[in-house]
C-alpha cells in the first residue's frame, strides 16, 4: 500500500478505537500491539500502520462486496 491519506488514517483510527483495551494483536514478525500502539502506527503512517490499514480496508471491501453482511 502507498502512503496513507489522511482520510484513510482517520477512518482506520476511528475503527480501531473500538478495539478492547484488554486485548492485544499479534501481527506476525511485527510483534504484539495494544490498541493505542496500533493507532500510533497508523498516525505515523509507517510500515506497521500501513499493514493495519491494509487489513482494515480489505475487511471494508468485503463488507462492501456483500461477502460479509
Amino acid at each position, binding site marked *: 500500500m502507498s502512503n496513507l491519506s489522511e482520510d484513510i488514517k482517520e477512518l482506520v483510527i476511528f*475503527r480501531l478505537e473500538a478495539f478492547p483495551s484488554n*486485548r*492485544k494483536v*499479534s*501481527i*506476525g514478525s511485527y510483534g504484539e500491539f495494544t490498541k493505542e500502539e496500533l493507532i500510533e502506527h497508523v498516525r505515523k503512517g509507517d510500515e506497521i500502520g500501513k499493514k493495519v490499514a491494509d487489513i482494515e480496508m*480489505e*475487511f471494508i471491501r468485503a463488507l462492501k462486496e456483500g461477502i*460479509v453482511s
Partner: protein
Amino acid sequence: MTEMLITRPEHDKTTHYLSNWSKEIINIAEGKNIKVFDLNREKAIRTNVEVRLRKLSCNLTFFNGHGNFNVITGHNNEPIIIGGENENLLKSKIVYAISCKSAKELGPRSVKAGAVSYTGFDDDFIFVYEPENISRPLHDNTAKLFLEPSQLFMKSLIKGNSVREGMDKTKKLLADNFLKALNDNDRDSAKYLWWDLKHFVSHGDVDAKLQ
C-alpha cells in the same frame, strides 16, 4: 514409520502462544505411532533443523515461528529455512508452516525443489489474544478463535486426510469462527479472521496424504 519434525521456538509472546497450542499435535501424532522430533525453544535452530531433515525421513514437517516471504525462523528469529539456500531439504515432505508470509515465495520454491506440498500463509498470520491469559494460553478463548483452526490442518493430516481436505477443514473453521465473532459483535477478531482466511494457501500436490 511416519516421522514428523516440529519446531517450537518460544522467545516472544507470539511464539509462546504458537508453541503451546501446537503441543496437542505432538500428543496426537505420538498416539498414531508417528515418531516426533520436537525442536523446542533453543533447540529450534538451523543446525538442528538441517541435521534432522538430512538424517531422518520425516514425511511431515511442521514449523511454528516467524518468517518472511522467503524465510522461516526459529529460536530468537534465527533463519532456519531460507529459499535459495536449504529449501531442498524439504524434498519429499509435506510441509506446514505457521510462519508469516513464507507461503508466498518459499512455498513455491520448496515445491519446485521437491517438497510434496507447502501449506501456510502468504501474508502475516494474525491473532488476537488476552494478555491476562499469557501464562495459560490454552485458556485464552480469544486466541482460540485463530489458533484452533491453525492447528486443525495438522490434526487432519495426521488422521489420514489429504492436504486439500486439511485445507478445507481449516478454512471452514476459520469461516465459522469469523461468523461467530461477527454474531458476538466482535468485529476486531472478525476482520483478522477474515485476513487469515484469505491468506491461507497450499502449493504442490494437494491430494497428498501421509504414507
